[in-house]
C-alpha cells in the first residue's frame, strides 16, 4: 500500500530537480537571508560582549542556518494552495482515487521538501562553515539531520491540518502568513527561544511550532546536547498528522454531504 505514496514522493522530488530555475531562486533567497542574519547576529553579539543568551555569534549563525533551511524547504504558501484546491473543488476529484487524499498530498510535499532541504543544508553548511567555523555542538549537529527531516514533516502535517479549515471557511487561505509568522516567532526560526521573556518561552514550548525550526537548530548550535528533542518532535509529528487526518476526514465528509 506504500506504493502510491512512495511513487508520489519520488515524482515530487524529481519535479523539483527538473525545475532548476525555481529551485535556484529559492536557494538564492535562502542565501540572502543567511547574509542578513550573519550581519545582524554578529552585530548583536558584539553589542552584548560576545554572547547572546549563551550563544556566540558563530553559534547563532549556525542556529539560523539550520532553522531557516528547515523552514525554507516547505512551500511558503502551501496553506493557500491547499485552500484554493479545496475551494475550487480539485480535492473532490482527488477523492475519487483509491488512496488517501491527505497522505498522497503529504508524500508529494515531503518529496519536494526533501530535495530543497538537502540543497539548503548543503549551501548553508558551506556558507556558515566558511564564515563562522565548524558547528559549536558537533555531537548534536549529527542529530540535526534527522531532526530537520522531522521538522519539515511536522510543519507539512500542521499546514495540512491548518489549511483543512478551508473545507468550511472560504477565506482560510489568507491565513497562510499568520501561520508562517507563528513558525518564525514561536517556532524559534528568527531567534532562539532562550531570548524570549520567561512567560513567552513557556507558551512557545506548549505549542508545536518549536518542532519545526528550533529543534534542529538547537541541536546544531546549543550546548549541552539535548537528544530528547528528537523524541519530542516525533511525538508532536504523530499528533499533528493525526489532527490533519481528522480534519481532512471530516472535511471530505462535509464535501460529500454539502457538495464542493
Amino acid at each position: 500500500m506504500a506504493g502510491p505514496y512512495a511513487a508520489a514522493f519520488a515524482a515530487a522530488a524529481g519535479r523539483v530537480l527538473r525545475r532548476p530555475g525555481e529551485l535556484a531562486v529559492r536557494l538564492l533567497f535562502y542565501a540572502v537571508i543567511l547574509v542578513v542574519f550573519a550581519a545582524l547576529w554578529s552585530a548583536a553579539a558584539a553589542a552584548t560582549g560576545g554572547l547572546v543568551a549563551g550563544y556566540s555569534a558563530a553559534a547563532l549563525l549556525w542556529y539560523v542556518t539550520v532553522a531557516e533551511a528547515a523552514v525554507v524547504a516547505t512551500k511558503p504558501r502551501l496553506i493557500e494552495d491547499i485552500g484554493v484546491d479545496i475551494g475550487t473543488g480539485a480535492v473532490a476529484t482527488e477523492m475519487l482515487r483509491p488512496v488517501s487524499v491527505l497522505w498522497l498530498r503529504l508524500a508529494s510535499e515531503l518529496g519536494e521538501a526533501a530535495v530543497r532541504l538537502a540543497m539548503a543544508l548543503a549551501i548553508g553548511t558551506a556558507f556558515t562553515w566558511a564564515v563562522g567555523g565548524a558547528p559549536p555542538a558537533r555531537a548534536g549537529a549529527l542529530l540535526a539531520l534527522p531532526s530537520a527531516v522531522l521538522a519539515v514533516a511536522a510543519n507539512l502535517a500542521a499546514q495540512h491540518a491548518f489549511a483543512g479549515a478551508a473545507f468550511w471557511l472560504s477565506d482560510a487561505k489568507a491565513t497562510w502568513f499568520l501561520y508562517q509568522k507563528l513558525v518564525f516567532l514561536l517556532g524559534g526560526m528568527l531567534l532562539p527561544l532562550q531570548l524570549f521573556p520567561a512567560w513567552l518561552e513557556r507558551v512557545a514550548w506548549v505549542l508545536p511550532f518549536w518542532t519545526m525550526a528550533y529543534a534542529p537548530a538547537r541541536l546544531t548550535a546549543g550546548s549541552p546536547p539535548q537528544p530528547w528533542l528528537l523524541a519530542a518532535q516525533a511525538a508532536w509529528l504523530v499528533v499533528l498528522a493525526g489532527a490533519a487526518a481528522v480534519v481532512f476526514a471530516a472535511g471530505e465528509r462535509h464535501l460529500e454531504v454539502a457538495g464542493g
Partner: protein
Amino acid sequence: MTGMRALLGTMRTAVVEAWSNRRSFWVQASAMILNDAAWVAFWGLFFHKIGQVRGWRSDQVMLMFAILATVTGISMGLLSNARKLGQLVADGQLDAVLTLPVDPLAYLLVRRVDTALLGDLAFGPVLFAVAAHPTPQRTVLYVLGALTGSAVFVSFVVMLGSVTMVAGGRGEQADLGFQALLILASYPLDVFGGLTKLMMFTVIPAAFLTGVPVHLVDHFRWATLAAMLGVAVGSMLLAGVVFRAGLRRYRSGALWTRA
C-alpha cells in the same frame, strides 16, 4: 489630462474590485496587520535582550518598520502589478494593454490592488504615530520618505520585470529582486558592512527604502533630502526607459486576454 483621468478611473475600479468582497477584504487586511504585529514583536524581543545595535535603538527600528510597511502598502498594495510584470508578459496580458490609449506601464501599475497589502498601508502610519515620536516635521519627512522609497521599490521591480520581455521566463528575476530588496530593507542599515552596504546603495537599492528615510527623519539635512528625491526621480526615469526598451524587443505572446 485625458490620460490622467483614465488612469485615475482605472485605479478607482481596482480599489472598488478589492472592496467588493468585504469579508475577504477585512480578513486579508487584518491578517496582514497581525503579520506586521509579529515583526514588531520580533524587534521588541530582540531589543529587549540586546539593547542597542550599532547605534540603532528600538524606537528607530519601529520608525524603520513604519516606513517599510507604508512603502510596501503603496508600492505593492496600491500598485500590485509592479511585481507581477514578468507574469503578465509571460501570460500575454500585455497585448491587450498595448491597444489602450493610455501609457501601458502606468495603466498596468494602477490596474490591480493587492488587498492584503493594504493592511500594511494601514499599519505603517499607525505604528509611526504610536512608536516613532511624531512631530509635524517628522511626519512630513516620514511621508516624503515613504513616497520616495515607494518610487525606488516600484522602479526596481519594474526594471527587473521588464527583462522578461527580452529574456523570457515568468519574471523569476523580479521575484528574487523583490525578496532581496524587502529582506535587506527590513533590517537596520548599519548592521551591514562593506560590500553588502555598498550593494544596498547601488544594485539592490534597499537603503533608499528604509535606511536613508530613517536617517532623514531622525537627522534632517537638506542634502539627504535632495539625494533621496534625486534617486527617486532618477529610478522612475530609468524604469520608464528600461520598460520602453523592453517593449521595443517584445514580441506578442499571441494570447488575447482581457486588459
